[in-house]
Protein backbone atom coordinates (compact mmCIF):
# COMPACT_ATOMS: atom_id res chain seq x y z
CA UNK A 1 0.00 0.00 0.00
CA UNK A 2 1.50 3.37 -1.03
CA UNK A 3 0.61 6.74 0.42
CA UNK A 4 1.50 10.06 -1.22
CA UNK A 5 3.14 12.53 1.15
CA UNK A 6 4.56 15.57 -0.66
CA UNK A 7 7.28 14.32 -3.02
CA UNK A 8 7.77 11.06 -1.14
CA UNK A 9 5.77 7.87 -1.29
CA UNK A 10 5.49 5.78 1.85
CA UNK A 11 5.13 2.07 1.27
CA UNK A 12 3.40 0.21 4.05
CA UNK A 13 3.21 -3.54 3.85
CA UNK A 14 -0.36 -4.64 4.51
CA UNK A 15 -0.84 -7.62 6.77
CA UNK A 16 -3.78 -10.01 6.45
CA UNK A 17 -6.20 -9.83 9.40
CA UNK A 18 -5.27 -13.41 10.33
CA UNK A 19 -1.50 -12.71 10.72
CA UNK A 20 -1.63 -13.51 14.44
CA UNK A 21 -2.83 -17.07 13.80
CA UNK A 22 0.22 -17.98 11.68
CA UNK A 23 2.62 -18.71 14.52
CA UNK A 24 2.14 -19.68 18.16
CA UNK A 25 4.48 -16.82 19.14
CA UNK A 26 2.27 -14.27 17.35
CA UNK A 27 -0.86 -15.78 18.89
CA UNK A 28 0.43 -15.56 22.48
CA UNK A 29 1.71 -12.04 21.84
CA UNK A 30 -1.84 -10.98 20.87
CA UNK A 31 -3.26 -12.86 23.87
CA UNK A 32 -0.90 -10.85 26.10
CA UNK A 33 -2.00 -7.56 24.55
CA UNK A 34 -5.67 -8.58 24.64
CA UNK A 35 -5.45 -9.55 28.34
CA UNK A 36 -5.87 -5.84 29.13
CA UNK A 37 -9.53 -5.89 28.02
CA UNK A 38 -11.02 -8.55 30.38
CA UNK A 39 -8.91 -7.22 33.26
CA UNK A 40 -10.12 -3.65 32.63
CA UNK A 41 -13.75 -4.85 32.55
CA UNK A 42 -13.25 -6.84 35.77
CA UNK A 43 -11.83 -3.78 37.57
CA UNK A 44 -14.73 -1.62 36.35
CA UNK A 45 -17.16 -4.23 37.76
CA UNK A 46 -15.31 -4.04 41.09
CA UNK A 47 -15.59 -0.23 40.98
CA UNK A 48 -19.35 -0.62 40.35
CA UNK A 49 -19.62 -2.91 43.37
CA UNK A 50 -17.87 -0.31 45.54
CA UNK A 51 -20.26 2.35 44.21
CA UNK A 52 -23.31 0.22 45.02
CA UNK A 53 -22.25 0.24 48.68
CA UNK A 54 -23.27 3.92 48.69
CA UNK A 55 -26.90 2.79 48.22
CA UNK A 56 -27.13 1.41 51.76
CA UNK A 57 -27.71 -2.18 52.89
CA UNK A 58 -30.87 -2.62 50.84
CA UNK A 59 -29.29 -1.29 47.66
CA UNK A 60 -26.00 -3.17 47.95
CA UNK A 61 -25.62 -6.08 45.56
CA UNK A 62 -22.26 -7.88 45.73
CA UNK A 63 -20.90 -9.24 42.48
CA UNK A 64 -22.10 -12.77 41.90
CA UNK A 65 -24.11 -15.02 39.65
CA UNK A 66 -23.03 -17.71 37.21
CA UNK A 67 -22.16 -15.24 34.45
CA UNK A 68 -19.87 -13.21 36.70
CA UNK A 69 -18.10 -16.32 38.05
CA UNK A 70 -17.54 -17.66 34.50
CA UNK A 71 -16.21 -14.25 33.43
CA UNK A 72 -13.94 -14.20 36.50
CA UNK A 73 -12.51 -17.62 35.57
CA UNK A 74 -11.70 -16.26 32.09
CA UNK A 75 -10.28 -13.04 33.59
CA UNK A 76 -8.17 -15.11 36.03
CA UNK A 77 -6.58 -16.96 33.11
CA UNK A 78 -5.64 -13.67 31.41
CA UNK A 79 -4.52 -12.22 34.74
CA UNK A 80 -2.21 -15.15 35.49
CA UNK A 81 -0.81 -14.96 31.95
CA UNK A 82 -0.15 -11.23 32.36
CA UNK A 83 1.53 -11.82 35.75
CA UNK A 84 3.72 -14.65 34.51
CA UNK A 85 4.87 -12.85 31.34
CA UNK A 86 5.30 -9.44 32.99
CA UNK A 87 7.24 -10.70 36.02
CA UNK A 88 9.38 -12.99 33.85
CA UNK A 89 10.40 -9.97 31.79
CA UNK A 90 12.09 -8.47 34.84
CA UNK A 91 15.00 -10.86 34.33
CA UNK A 92 15.56 -9.44 30.85
CA UNK A 93 15.12 -5.80 31.89
CA UNK A 94 17.08 -5.61 35.14
CA UNK A 95 20.83 -5.75 34.59
CA UNK A 96 23.52 -5.20 37.21
CA UNK A 97 26.96 -6.47 38.06
CA UNK A 98 28.28 -8.08 41.24
CA UNK A 99 32.09 -7.97 41.55
CA UNK A 100 32.48 -7.24 37.82
CA UNK A 101 30.27 -10.16 36.88
CA UNK A 102 26.84 -9.93 35.29
CA UNK A 103 24.23 -11.02 37.81
CA UNK A 104 22.17 -13.89 36.32
CA UNK A 105 18.53 -13.23 35.46
CA UNK A 106 16.98 -16.31 37.08
CA UNK A 107 17.32 -15.14 40.77
CA UNK A 108 15.65 -11.84 39.77
CA UNK A 109 12.73 -13.66 38.14
CA UNK A 110 12.41 -16.05 41.08
CA UNK A 111 12.47 -13.13 43.53
CA UNK A 112 9.61 -11.52 41.60
CA UNK A 113 7.62 -14.79 41.62
CA UNK A 114 8.16 -15.27 45.36
CA UNK A 115 7.11 -11.67 45.99
CA UNK A 116 3.97 -12.29 43.89
CA UNK A 117 3.13 -15.37 46.01
CA UNK A 118 3.66 -13.48 49.31
CA UNK A 119 1.58 -10.47 48.16
CA UNK A 120 -1.20 -12.78 46.91
CA UNK A 121 -1.28 -14.65 50.23
CA UNK A 122 -1.53 -11.32 52.09
CA UNK A 123 -4.41 -10.11 49.87
CA UNK A 124 -6.32 -13.39 50.38
CA UNK A 125 -5.77 -13.12 54.14
CA UNK A 126 -6.86 -9.43 54.19
CA UNK A 127 -10.06 -10.11 52.22
CA UNK A 128 -10.89 -12.89 54.69
CA UNK A 129 -9.83 -10.83 57.75
CA UNK A 130 -12.08 -7.89 56.83
CA UNK A 131 -15.01 -10.34 56.58
CA UNK A 132 -14.74 -11.29 60.26
Amino acid at each position, binding site marked *: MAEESGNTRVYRKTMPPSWWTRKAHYFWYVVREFSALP*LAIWLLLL*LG*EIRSAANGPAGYHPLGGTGFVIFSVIALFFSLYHSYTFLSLSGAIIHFKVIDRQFPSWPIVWAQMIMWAI*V*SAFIIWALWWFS*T
Partner: protein
Amino acid sequence: MHMFWWFMFAQGGVIAALLLPAHILVQGILGPLGGMPVADRHYETWVSALHNPIVKLYLIVLISVPFFHFAHRLRYLVVDFGVHEAKGMWAQVGFYGTSVAITIVTIWIVWTTAPIDIGALHLLG
Protein backbone atom coordinates in the same frame (compact mmCIF):
# COMPACT_ATOMS: atom_id res chain seq x y z
CA MET B 1 5.99 13.90 29.73
CA HIS B 2 6.96 10.86 27.68
CA MET B 3 8.75 9.47 30.75
CA PHE B 4 5.62 9.94 32.83
CA TRP B 5 3.51 7.73 30.55
CA TRP B 6 6.20 5.05 30.43
CA PHE B 7 6.48 5.16 34.22
CA MET B 8 2.70 4.80 34.58
CA PHE B 9 2.68 1.99 32.00
CA ALA B 10 5.33 0.08 33.97
CA GLN B 11 3.69 0.72 37.34
CA GLY B 12 0.31 -0.35 35.97
CA GLY B 13 1.87 -3.57 34.72
CA VAL B 14 3.48 -4.29 38.09
CA ILE B 15 0.30 -3.54 40.09
CA ALA B 16 -1.84 -5.68 37.78
CA ALA B 17 0.70 -8.52 37.90
CA LEU B 18 1.18 -8.59 41.67
CA LEU B 19 -2.32 -7.76 42.95
CA LEU B 20 -5.02 -8.67 40.44
CA PRO B 21 -4.95 -12.51 40.34
CA ALA B 22 -5.64 -12.82 44.07
CA HIS B 23 -8.56 -10.36 43.89
CA ILE B 24 -10.11 -12.13 40.88
CA LEU B 25 -9.68 -15.55 42.52
CA VAL B 26 -11.17 -14.50 45.86
CA GLN B 27 -13.74 -11.80 44.97
CA GLY B 28 -14.63 -13.20 41.56
CA ILE B 29 -14.71 -16.94 42.16
CA LEU B 30 -14.25 -18.21 45.75
CA GLY B 31 -16.44 -15.53 47.39
CA PRO B 32 -19.45 -15.82 45.05
CA LEU B 33 -19.24 -19.65 45.15
CA GLY B 34 -19.15 -19.66 48.98
CA GLY B 35 -15.67 -21.17 49.08
CA MET B 36 -14.48 -18.73 51.74
CA PRO B 37 -15.83 -15.71 53.65
CA VAL B 38 -14.87 -12.50 51.82
CA ALA B 39 -15.32 -8.88 52.95
CA ASP B 40 -17.40 -7.75 49.97
CA ARG B 41 -20.06 -10.48 50.27
CA HIS B 42 -21.89 -8.51 52.98
CA TYR B 43 -22.68 -4.79 53.15
CA GLU B 44 -21.55 -4.34 56.78
CA THR B 45 -18.10 -5.90 56.38
CA TRP B 46 -17.48 -4.23 53.01
CA VAL B 47 -18.44 -0.74 54.21
CA SER B 48 -16.39 -1.33 57.37
CA ALA B 49 -13.36 -2.00 55.17
CA LEU B 50 -14.16 0.98 52.89
CA HIS B 51 -14.12 3.34 55.91
CA ASN B 52 -10.43 2.56 56.34
CA PRO B 53 -8.19 5.20 54.69
CA ILE B 54 -5.48 2.64 53.88
CA VAL B 55 -8.05 0.41 52.16
CA LYS B 56 -9.32 3.44 50.23
CA LEU B 57 -5.83 4.36 49.05
CA TYR B 58 -5.13 0.72 48.16
CA LEU B 59 -8.34 0.39 46.10
CA ILE B 60 -7.64 3.65 44.23
CA VAL B 61 -4.18 2.36 43.27
CA LEU B 62 -5.46 -1.18 42.49
CA ILE B 63 -8.21 0.04 40.16
CA SER B 64 -6.79 3.17 38.51
CA VAL B 65 -3.06 2.57 37.92
CA PRO B 66 -3.45 -0.61 35.77
CA PHE B 67 -5.57 1.40 33.32
CA PHE B 68 -2.44 3.31 32.24
CA HIS B 69 -0.95 -0.07 31.31
CA PHE B 70 -4.15 -1.33 29.68
CA ALA B 71 -4.53 1.86 27.60
CA HIS B 72 -1.11 1.35 26.02
CA ARG B 73 -1.64 -2.35 25.37
CA LEU B 74 -5.08 -1.90 23.83
CA ARG B 75 -3.87 1.01 21.66
CA TYR B 76 -1.08 -1.14 20.24
CA LEU B 77 -3.45 -4.09 19.84
CA VAL B 78 -5.56 -1.84 17.59
CA VAL B 79 -2.38 -0.80 15.70
CA ASP B 80 -1.36 -4.45 15.30
CA PHE B 81 -4.72 -5.19 13.67
CA GLY B 82 -4.05 -2.60 11.00
CA VAL B 83 -5.56 0.59 12.40
CA HIS B 84 -2.50 2.85 12.01
CA GLU B 85 -4.55 5.88 13.05
CA ALA B 86 -4.23 4.53 16.60
CA LYS B 87 -0.63 5.78 16.55
CA GLY B 88 -1.85 9.36 16.08
CA MET B 89 -2.18 12.08 18.66
CA TRP B 90 -5.97 11.92 18.92
CA ALA B 91 -5.88 8.18 19.58
CA GLN B 92 -3.31 8.79 22.32
CA VAL B 93 -5.53 11.47 23.82
CA GLY B 94 -8.46 9.05 23.65
CA PHE B 95 -6.73 6.03 25.21
CA TYR B 96 -4.62 7.77 27.85
CA GLY B 97 -7.32 10.37 28.49
CA THR B 98 -9.68 7.50 29.32
CA SER B 99 -7.20 6.16 31.88
CA VAL B 100 -6.98 9.62 33.46
CA ALA B 101 -10.80 9.90 33.49
CA ILE B 102 -11.12 6.46 35.11
CA THR B 103 -8.57 7.52 37.75
CA ILE B 104 -10.64 10.63 38.59
CA VAL B 105 -13.90 8.63 38.72
CA THR B 106 -12.24 5.94 40.88
CA ILE B 107 -10.94 8.52 43.36
CA TRP B 108 -14.39 10.13 43.53
CA ILE B 109 -16.26 6.82 44.01
CA VAL B 110 -13.85 5.35 46.58
CA TRP B 111 -13.60 8.69 48.43
CA THR B 112 -17.38 9.31 48.64
CA THR B 113 -18.77 5.79 49.09
CA ALA B 114 -17.94 5.46 52.78
CA PRO B 115 -16.57 8.41 54.80
CA ILE B 116 -13.02 8.00 56.05
CA ASP B 117 -12.91 6.73 59.63
CA ILE B 118 -9.47 7.21 61.16
CA GLY B 119 -10.63 4.98 64.03
CA ALA B 120 -10.78 2.10 61.55
CA LEU B 121 -6.98 2.22 61.49
CA HIS B 122 -6.84 0.61 64.93
CA LEU B 123 -8.12 -2.55 63.24
CA LEU B 124 -4.79 -2.79 61.49
CA GLY B 125 -2.77 -2.28 64.64
